[in-house]
């Protein structure tokens, strides 16, 4: 197992390397070049030249890639174009955690990400937890009562939940809970339509929670539909198996058979499914965050895309891809750990 993990880690590094080349190429063949949208500000052509030299953009692409990856602080750079190199490079490269500066705010990219990440982790973490807590009982009950009215409704719901575009659902929920339903005592809208907290008041837990309800509902629905349907079919595959029949024959209660013996096995695929969805906790949900004006990673990425803030876009994509690869690995390891029948050589 250890050697398997080691081999997978090596593969992971190779994969990330491949991806970094892919993404770097993509961003750099984009017409206009990264400086064409320098914060939307107008800059004098001479200044552009100097900036280009400082960023190393006058160099051939493969060299630029190396600077981006490993930095250029070991080199002397000729920033004014007189043929004499007079200052050393300032970039450390992404390998040493230097993702460069955001074109838009001129702050280090990692600083920008650090400001938004906690908001996204809060939103997506709560969304995922809600989804799991609802989906598991739903899936179990649906499987135990296969072909009942409840099962029919739950299955239909899960088809519907997977077909609803989340941004549309978000707008519908705002319509219902903000525009139509009012708090019967105050006459205020029942729930706020967006943001993380009310501006005027100080910190209040109930205010924070009220702001979470709609985005969490919007995000959770798709996951509830997906997880519950998966759990239902995985339980249905297991329930007729012989080991459960012998458990019943030994006189165990149906409750114990289902919850102790069947569920353990049925949950294994769900655990891996959840592990595969974990990267969303970092990248966030662009559509939900933009509807509910949630200041998280998704909105940060969206703004960066509008203004073509390439260093930020690259950083989010690379780190996001890293998370995806890591979570894939975690999912595979968890799978082998939970299910002794699975062996990797």
């Amino acid at each position, binding site marked *: 197992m250890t050697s398997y993990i080691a081999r997978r880690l090596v593969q992971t590094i*190779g*994969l*990330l390397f*491949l*991806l970094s080349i*892919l993404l770097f190429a*993509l*961003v750099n063949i*984009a*017409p*206009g070049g990264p400086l064409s949208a320098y914060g939307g500000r107008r800059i004098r052509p001479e200044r552009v030249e100097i900036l280009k030299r400082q960023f190393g953009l006058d160099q051939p692409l493969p060299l630029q890639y190396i600077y981006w990856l490993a930095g250029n602080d070991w080199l002397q750079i000729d920033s004014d174009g007189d043929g004499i190199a007079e200052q050393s490079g300032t970039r450390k490269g992404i390998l040493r955690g230097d993702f460069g500066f955001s074109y838009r705010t001129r702050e280090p990219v990692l600083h920008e990400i650090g400001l938004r990440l906690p908001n996204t982790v809060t939103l997506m973490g709560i969304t995922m937890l809600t989804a799991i807590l609802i989906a598991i009982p739903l899936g179990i009950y649906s499987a135990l009562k296969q*072909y009942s009215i409840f099962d029919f409704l739950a299955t239909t719901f899960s*088809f*519907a939940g*997977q*077909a*609803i*575009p*989340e*941004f*549309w659902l978000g*707008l*519908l929920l*705002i*319509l219902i809970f*903000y*525009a139509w339903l009012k708090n019967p005592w105050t006459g205020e809208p029942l729930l706020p339509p967006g943001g993380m907290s009310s501006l005027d008041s100080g910190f209040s837990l109930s205010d924070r929670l009220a702001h979470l309800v709609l985005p969490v509902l919007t995000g959770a629905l798709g996951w509830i539909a997906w997880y519950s349907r998966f759990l239902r079919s995985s339980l249905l595959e297991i329930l007729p198996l012989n080991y459960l029949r012998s458990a019943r024959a030994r006189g165990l209660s149906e409750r114990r058979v289902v919850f102790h013996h069947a569920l353990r096995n049925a949950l294994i695929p769900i655990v891996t499914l959840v592990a595969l969805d974990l*990267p969303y906790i970092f*990248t966030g949900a*662009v*559509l939900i965050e*933009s509807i509910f004006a949630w200041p998280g990673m998704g909105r940060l*990425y*969206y703004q960066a*895309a*509008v203004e*073509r803030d390439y260093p930020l*876009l690259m950083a*989010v*994509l690379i780190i*996001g*891809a890293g998370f*995806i*690869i890591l979570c*894939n690995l975690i999912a595979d390891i968890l799978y082998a750990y939970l299910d002794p029948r699975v062996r990797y050589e």
Partner: protein
Amino acid sequence: MSTYIETIESPAEQSVDLAQNVWKRFRRHRGAIAGGVIFTVLALMCILAPLSPYDPEKSNLPEKFQPPSAAHWLGTDALGRDLFTRILYGGRISLSVGGIAVSISLLIGVPVGALAGYYGRGLDSLLMRITDAFLSLPSFLVLILLAAILREVELPFFQRNNVFTISFVIGILSWMTFARLVRAAFLTLRELDYVSAARALGSSDGRIIVGHILPNGIGVVIVEATLQLGYAIIQEAGLSFLSFGIQQPTPSWGNLISAAQDHFIKYPWLAIFPGLMIFLSIISVNYIGDGLRDAFDPYKVLERVGEYT
């Protein structure tokens, strides 16, 4: 002696039987039939959009924000355009994007999977590493990036994020499942005796891949293609909602909702109806996919029939 000859049918004869069997089983799936009917009606309505007396793009300010009525079945938008007409024209765009995007991912994914599965070894690991790399991308974020870049450029075929551009970016980010499914099918099928027989009879690799192995793996590909169609429609809608997709004034289901965002509290129909179209088309496509999955997987159907009788 005759039994042996019967087992080696030509692919054409086989496929007739397969299609008949699949259709027979598909008909038993009520959800799939309902989905098929709804989707056909939706598609027909969109195809017949030019029958509408209104222009989908020309503004008519005096009639703006009218609620649904006999003249304007679904009301009018901020520029006084008939929403129903715009939804139908938008449907042409959204459904074409879905169809073209899936065709593009099929065109990439099926050959990649077939070559990797048939030839194995070095080619297999190279192609599968590339597939893994694509699978490790946060796909919606890359989609946004690509669309944001292409929105700014003027290339032949790619002008201003038209239908082809959006289909292209969705397609090149979603071929990986096809590649994996086809590869898996090839890995099993290439070992079977009928393939050795074809090779012994002197068939070329190309003929074996296209004529003998591919037809037997087509089931999973068709099922996946239906599901991908729904996925592509939702991706286009999300992209256009963020204004990186199909650009105004050309309507698409996504940008209709996007345009409604500023007014939907007062004029909710502007957001409700386009979304309903997306919802209906995706749920019907998913039911069709579910029916096809059962139809291509006879064991599951036997179980189902056993349960019902």
